[in-house]
């Protein structure tokens, strides 16, 4: 074995250029495969942690995924609201530590407006229980006493970046999700503009794409509205809204934190069987995972494609080694004459392709970590995607093992050919 191994090394060194190109091709494909796998896992983990620290999400009776979609992702809309009485009932449950109501329905230039309390900023957690951070400014005023405090808005990072909004900017909300650029003008709450008081840092969650106002703000812009349209002839100036009762009658959903996680299923059952109103409570983590398995098809396709790229890379490697075999036939005959056994000739070629594959895999890992280190800050700031740079996980080891197994199989192709040559050629040196 040892003469064979040194021969392999020399023979590889002799064909540096083609070997280098082959190794680079394998390395790129391996880096792509592992990169996709890692991004996939990180995206999945990030997705599952879109909302962390919240034990239950509660809304009117609906399917769990639908509730999650509108309450957390602000996609689609609720078929029903839940009454304020239910909110008060839930908040008073002994197991409940905190409750953040959420009111949806308005929008700004295609972005959803989320009405809530200032507690939202305290309790909304994502990823590793990380809170929302303010890039600039402060939360909107909670339970505002002054009329001015009612019309404050906090912008998600993407909203601020997309429209170039700064603190102090006055913006107009639109009724329903149809407002904005192409929407009908009547839907604007133009008479009651909001002032930007805070801009959130990017979190990689749906909050990036939302605008946050107080529940009172939502109520205030609708005091002269009824049934989704302004009441004809009624105009109430912003400075007068204080005179009205701004306590919401209903909200869309609520985020609930419990004192102890162990009570979560009991409280969930309690809410789902609440006699006064038909409600649904979901565990956000579990439902997020269910949702991911829906959207995860694309990500599996991506992995399949990168696996194919690896196959192409290895096929290229086999092609290079097999092509070299023709001109190396005389080399094999020399080795046979010197006493090399056919199985040593076989090992020579197998070791050669295996070394190429190993070098490709190693270089691929270097590329992966290099690119990871280079792009992680950008991925995090631009896409809120936390790229992990730790050791390969179980899935990645499994992929590496598969790549190695396939390259082992691939290395048999030239080796078997050389084996056959060395048996058939005898001592005839073919040129």
């Amino acid at each position: 074995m040892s003469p064979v191994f040194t021969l392999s090394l020399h023979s590889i060194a002799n064909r540096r250029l083609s070997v280098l190109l082959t190794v680079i091709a394998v390395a790129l494909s391996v880096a792509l495969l592992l990169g996709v796998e890692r991004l996939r896992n990180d995206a999945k983990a990030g997705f599952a942690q879109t909302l962390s620290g919240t034990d239950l999400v509660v809304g009117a009776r609906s399917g769990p995924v639908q509730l999650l979609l509108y309450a957390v992702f602000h996609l689609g809309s609720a078929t029903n609201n839940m009454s304020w009485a239910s909110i008060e009932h839930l908040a008073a449950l002994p197991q409940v530590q905190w409750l953040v109501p959420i009111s949806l329905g308005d929008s700004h230039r295609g972005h959803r407006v989320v009405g809530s309390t200032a507690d939202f900023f305290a309790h909304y957690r994502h990823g590793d229980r990380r809170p929302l951070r303010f890039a600039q400014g402060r939360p909107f005023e909670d339970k505002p006493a002054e009329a001015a405090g009612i019309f404050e808005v906090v912008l998600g990072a993407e909203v601020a970046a997309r429209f170039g909004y700064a603190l102090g900017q006055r913006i107009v909300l639109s009724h329903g999700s149809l407002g904005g650029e192409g929407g009908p003008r009547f839907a604007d709450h133009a008479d009651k503009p909001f002032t930007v008081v805070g801009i959130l840092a990017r979190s990689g969650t749906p909050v990036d794409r939302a605008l946050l106002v107080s529940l009172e703000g939502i109520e205030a812009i609708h005091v002269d509205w009824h049934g989704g349209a302004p009441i004809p002839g009624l105009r109430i100036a912003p400075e007068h809204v204080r005179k009205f009762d701004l306590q919401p009658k209903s909200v869309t959903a609520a985020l609930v934190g419990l004192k102890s996680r162990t009570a979560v299923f009991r409280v969930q059952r309690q809410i789902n069987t609440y006699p006064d109103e038909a409600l649904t409570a979901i565990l956000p983590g579990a439902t997020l995972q269910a949702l991911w398995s829906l959207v995860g098809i694309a990500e599996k396709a991506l992995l399949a494609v990168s696996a194919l790229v690896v196959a192409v890379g290895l096929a290229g490697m086999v092609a290079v080694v097999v092509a070299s075999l023709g001109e190396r036939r005389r080399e094999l005959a020399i080795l046979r004459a010197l006493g090399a056994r056919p199985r040593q000739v076989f090992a020579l070629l197998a070791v050669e392709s295996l070394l190429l594959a190993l070098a490709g895999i190693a270089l691929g890992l270097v590329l992966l970590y290099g690119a990871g280190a280079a792009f992680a800050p950008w991925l995090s700031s631009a896409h809120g995607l936390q790229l992990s740079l730790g050791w390969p996980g179980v899935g990645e080891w499994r992929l590496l093992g598969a790549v190695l197994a396939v390259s082992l199989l691939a290395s048999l192709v030239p080796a078997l050919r050389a084996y056959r040559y060395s048996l058939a050629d005898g001592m005839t040196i073919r040129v």
Partner: protein
Amino acid sequence: MPDHPTETASGAAAEPAAVLLDALRYRWPGADCDCLNIATLRIAAGERVFLRGPSGSGKTTLLSLVGGVILPQAGVVRIAGQSLAALSAGARDRFRADHVGFVFQLFNLLPYLSARDNILLACRFSPQRRARIAVAGSTPEAEATRLAERLDLGAALLDRPAAALSVGQQQRVAAARALIGRPGLVVADEPTSALDAERQQAFIDLLLDECAAAGAALLFVSHDQRLAGHFDRVLDLATIHRATGSMQAPA
């Protein structure tokens, strides 16, 4: 070798023949006639034989049989008294490495190794060659340098990649590789056909001298009768092929 009459008849029981072929028939797979059919051929230890035959007459095939790379359909091949057919495939390869040195017509060397490493390669595959060098109180490296010197190859040449040597130099490196570790038999397959006439004779003389010095028998194959000059014996493959009588052609 009591099982073999030729061996006892020759009376050389002390030292078995370097090569002994008996009732040998070989046919390449797929061919429709025998490539070789040799009643008997004997090369004594240390004997230097010139084997000639036209192109395609089976000279290289004969060498493959002598090396045990291929096995005959019938008959016996004995090298230094050992029947090759009696050995397993692996043992045959080891036996070839230990007892037979080869020099080919062209492209004898691995282009990616230095001349020195090409010579040493013969020792890599053969524990016996290493052992014989050690018994003589030398090392493979020293032995390679010594042989190269005798074959007119300077030390500077030895560290060059084989691909950077002239054809004549390559053939001498190949001769050194065949001879290192004193195998009992050196087999040369038209090693001079790529050399000009002047250097052909010089190479053959070197090879003859070194085989004599190493005590190795030499089986030199060529289609060129003019090179037969200094050999102990000249054989014509055409006369031993399918021959029934004695193949002991006169020198």
